[in-house]
């Protein structure tokens, strides 16, 4: 499928017009919606954590860009998580309507990989700043 068609499939009108399959049990739909909302709150928490690091932490001695190096990727990760949570909600709803197996979520992988990377960067920044 082309990128434009994939993108169009995510628009709310296209999702609403998805008449394939049958309406799933309301509890499944609610559970899918709650999962989306939980990821949205995680995304917001990352955004505010990134902003707090840049705005409120004291500068790291010897690493003038240290706060930005840690905070900006967290804010970007928040935006990425929000978009991915929506695409996963669409995929899950699609699978529920058709009685197909639930697709595997990439969100935990994205979150853990990025947080690990940022933790490593934080450790390096702290070591450099402590050595100064």
């Amino acid at each position, binding site marked *: 499928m082309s990128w434009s068609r994939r993108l169009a499939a995510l*628009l*709310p*009108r296209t*999702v*609403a017009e998805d008449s394939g399959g049958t309406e799933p*049990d*309301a*509890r*499944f739909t*609610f*559970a899918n*919606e*709650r999962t*989306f*909302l*939980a990821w*949205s*709150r995680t*995304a*917001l*928490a990352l*955004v*505010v954590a*990134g*902003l*707090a690091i*840049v*705005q*409120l*932490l*004291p*500068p790291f001695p010897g690493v003038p860009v240290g*706060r*930005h190096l840690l*905070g*900006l990727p967290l*804010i*970007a990760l*928040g*935006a990425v998580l*929000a*978009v991915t*949570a*929506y695409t996963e*909600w*669409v995929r899950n*709803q699609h699978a529920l309507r058709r009685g197909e197996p639930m697709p595997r979520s990439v969100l935990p992988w994205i979150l853990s990989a990025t947080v690990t990377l940022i933790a490593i960067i934080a450790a390096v920044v702290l070591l450099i700043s402590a050595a100064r």
Partner: protein
Amino acid sequence: MTDPPGQGQPGDGPEESDAGLARERTALAWTRTAISFGAVGGAVLKANVVTGLIILAMAPFVWQLGRVSRGREGLPALGPARLFLITVSIIVVALICLAVAIFGKSAPGALR
């Protein structure tokens, strides 16, 4: 013949079998999300008053979207557009925070 518990059902607990409780839990999740928007707005308020107020104003809007999901009287059924709007709102908030983080005046040491 009934399905064995936990197979083809959203959950195992007795409270999971009630769609009304699932609706209530979802309504609470919407409320928590609205509070999160308020918290982000409050945090940004410290860095930039105008943008903080804009994000803070999104909180009642998000809470209202949750009411739409509960199908209250007189409110239109927005369907998937609600979740799309939340996603767009978070992206807008992230872009605002990115701009504040890059160009805004920081208050270093506030967390010291």
